[in-house]
């Protein structure tokens, strides 16, 4: 299959146009020969018309192809194409005039055949120029397409196509129908000619060039039109190709749009700086609104903002003052002015307007104008930059004229400032998010380290089973449990809980482990253990922190345990022979509350005998204080009932039962806002 784009459509059209034109010349010469010699050439005038129409169509195709290829180029380039064609056409016309002027009334000069050849050449160039310019105008008219404009253009194109064949109806007479058609086409042309939206997009320099080009096009069109009329009037041509509605209407359209464009461009010249200014503002705005990339800095945004404000207000000087509390440095805070002038000007600004205190009063946060009493500078504008409820910086713009800042400037500068502040704020939030991410990572490490502080394996003999569980409210927590085998027959269980939760509790928990692990080596009685632990922990705990702990020393030979409690939640003891659970009551003050030797008066120990099937549940207050949506606590009784209901369960299953019940009780809306741990022991 042949690709359509591969076909040199432009060249084929050009070739065909030339062939048709040659045919037209030949046919017309034959006809003229017939007319002069009063012979019937046998060629009807319709043949000329058909060839003429074909010529128009091929020229149209040639230019359409050229414009289609260059549709990306800018306006000036496009217009230049029209101008160049026009200049060629006009030169051809001038050349013909010159030749005939030189020939004078000589034989060749009056030769009708030669005249006709020149006439055809001029006709071809004029048509080319008109069609090229019309296509150019189309491009400009449809620059900002709307449905309405496209429709208008289509109406025009259809009318033009009609005009092309009008010659068959009208037989090349300048009668009323011709005038009627011309008027209609001219009206449509003028309606189309108001679509001049491309002009504001030209900058000042481009407008001047456009004016020149348009002038040349108008000049060429005028000259060519004059020549067409001239040749028609003189009657030196027997075959008239140019009294054609299509051609005349094209003249009208080209001239109308050219003139409108010329005038509108001319009158747009003085306001073009405003349009350019708005465009610059839009670009600045875009620059400011692009959020700062992490590797870029707030300084860059402030820099762009300062420049944008200066260009938006045509300031004669400016500087940026940074809030001393902010850790932002800007390399070049001063623009246009020198340091000493700035010193002078700063003194002229009222002190209260230079405050860095953020107030919610909106007035302070808007750009404010100030009148200056200074030999050179007469007005100033203060633009505060507010980020996250504090004043980040203040831009001061200075002008040499009084009241130099109008309402539009204030509003655009206000918008710039707000946008810059949003950028800075976003930048900070992003950095904060990154920072938070890092903390999260650190906390995860802390969590891992802390998990390692709890024993993986619990020491226990054949004679009892044991299991433990711990959960933290935050990433890390303050609960601790451990087991220790003193000798073959003696085992120690410890559970501890640091007051509070979170990171501080976690650090104290680590200290607690150190103290407990050291003291446990000394083979102390439980009460003695607590006294020593109190003394040691008093030295390392913060003043408002304390630790509660429970310790059990189990003698598996005598089947007894010795227990001491330091402010900790009493341990639940299920007695198998009584089928009853109760909390072991023994007096004891938390560790680190009394930080002197008097602590020995506050702790007791108790030795109990246990039996096969007995269960001990050591726990922390997080379990008992778990609350449901009505604020009710899980409490002692629920725990007791669970244990009493499932005495046959193994420790691990009983533990799971307790945890499940707790979660069920707390439900989706309730909360366990504390670390909670469990240690379940079942004697065999």
């Amino acid at each position, binding site marked *: 299959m042949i690709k359509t784009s591969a076909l040199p459509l432009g060249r084929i059209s050009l070739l065909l146009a030339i062939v048709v034109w040659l045919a037209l010349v030949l046919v017309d010469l034959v006809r003229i020969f017939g007319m002069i010699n009063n012979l019937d050439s046998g060629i009807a005038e319709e043949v000329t018309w058909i060839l003429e129409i074909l010529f128009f169509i091929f020229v149209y195709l040639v230019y359409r192809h050229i414009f289609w290829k260059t549709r990306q180029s800018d306006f000036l380039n496009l217009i230049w194409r029209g101008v160049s064609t026009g200049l060629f056409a006009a030169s051809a016309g001038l050349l013909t005039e010159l030749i005939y002027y030189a020939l004078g009334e000589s034989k060749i000069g009056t030769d009708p055949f030669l005249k006709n050849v020149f006439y055809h050449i001029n006709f071809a160039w004029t048509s080319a120029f008109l069609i090229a310019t019309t296509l150019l105008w189309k491009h400009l008219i449809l620059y900002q397409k709307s449905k309405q404009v496209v429709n208008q253009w289509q109406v025009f194109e259809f009318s033009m196509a009609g005009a092309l064949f009008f010659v068959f109806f009208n037989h090349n007479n300048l009668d009323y129908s011709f005038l009627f058609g011309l008027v209609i086409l001219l009206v449509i042309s003028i309606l189309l000619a108001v679509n001049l939206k491309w002009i504001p997009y030209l900058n000042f320099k481009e407008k001047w060039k456009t004016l020149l080009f348009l002038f040349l096009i108008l000049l060429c069109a005028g000259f060519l039109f004059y020549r067409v009329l001239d040749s028609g009037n003189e009657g030196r041509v027997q075959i008239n190709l140019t009294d054609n509605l299509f051609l005349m209407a094209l003249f009208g359209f080209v001239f109308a749009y050219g003139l409108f464009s010329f005038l509108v461009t001319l009158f747009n010249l003085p306001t073009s700086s405003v349009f350019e200014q708005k465009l610059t503002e839009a670009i600045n705005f875009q620059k400011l609104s692009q959020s700062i990339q992490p590797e870029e800095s707030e300084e860059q945004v402030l820099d762009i903002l300062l420049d944008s404000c200066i260009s938006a207000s045509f300031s004669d000087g400016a500087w940026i003052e940074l809030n001393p509390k902010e850790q932002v440095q800007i390399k070049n805070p001063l623009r246009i002015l020198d340091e000493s002038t700035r010193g002078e000007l700063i003194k002229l600004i009222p002190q209260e307007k230079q405050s860095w205190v953020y107030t919610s009063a909106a007035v302070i946060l808007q750009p404010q104008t100030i009148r200056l009493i200074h030999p050179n500078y007469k007005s100033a504008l203060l633009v505060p930059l507010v980020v996250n409820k504090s004043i980040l910086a203040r831009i001061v713009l200075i002008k040499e004229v009084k009241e130099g800042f109008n309402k539009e400037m204030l509003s655009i500068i206000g918008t710039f400032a707000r946008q810059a502040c949003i950028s800075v704020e976003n930048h900070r939030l992003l950095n904060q998010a990154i920072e938070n991410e890092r903390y999260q990572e650190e906390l995860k490490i802390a969590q891992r380290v802390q998990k390692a502080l709890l024993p993986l394996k619990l020491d226990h003999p054949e004679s009892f089973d044991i299991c433990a569980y711990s959960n933290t409210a935050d990433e890390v927590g303050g609960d601790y449990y451990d087991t220790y085998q003193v000798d073959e027959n003696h085992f120690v269980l410890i559970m501890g809980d640091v007051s509070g939760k979170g990171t501080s509790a976690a650090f104290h928990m680590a200290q607690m482990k150190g103290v407990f692990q050291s003291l446990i080596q000394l083979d102390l009685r439980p009460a003695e253990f607590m006294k020593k632990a109190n003394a040691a922990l008093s030295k390392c705990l913060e003043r408002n922190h304390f630790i509660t702990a429970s310790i059990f020393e189990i003698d598996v030979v005598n089947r007894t345990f010795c227990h001491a409690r330091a402010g900790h939640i009493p341990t639940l003891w299920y007695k198998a022979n009584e089928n009853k659970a109760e909390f072991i009551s023994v007096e004891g003050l*938390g560790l680190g*509350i*009394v930080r002197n030797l008097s602590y020995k008066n506050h702790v007791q120990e108790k030795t109990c005998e246990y039996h096969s099937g007995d269960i001990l549940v050591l726990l922390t207050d997080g379990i008992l204080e778990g609350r449901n949506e009505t*604020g009710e606590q899980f409490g002692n009784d629920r725990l007791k009932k669970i244990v009493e209901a499932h005495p046959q369960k193994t420790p691990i299953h009983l533990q799971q039962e307790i945890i499940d019940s707790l979660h069920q009780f707390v439900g989706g809306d309730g909360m366990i806002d504390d670390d909670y741990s469990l240690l379940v022991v079942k004697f065999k």
Partner: protein
Amino acid sequence: MLQLERKKEENKDILRLIGEVDASNSILLDQSMQEILEQGATVLLIDGTELVYISSAGLGVFMSYLDDFSERGIRFAIFGLNEQVNEVFKILGLDRLIAIVPDLSTATRLTHES
């Protein structure tokens, strides 16, 4: 949620705790106690009649002032605790160090006597 209300009656400063004291707001309790102490209070009573819950962090605040109280001879008591909150103080053993009494009149009497 914790609300603190301060009231001065004769020589007594009464700090009323309404709601819950937990890890997040125990700092508020600490600040109030600090203020009262700085203003040279001699008798400080904590009104716990509307205290619903106190966590270990809240207990830590009271605990941290015990030395200050004894050093400066400030008489301190807590009254009106509900059963649940009272139990928390008891389990920790703070009832051995702080006068915890049923009502204001007992507290007043107690602080006058000592």
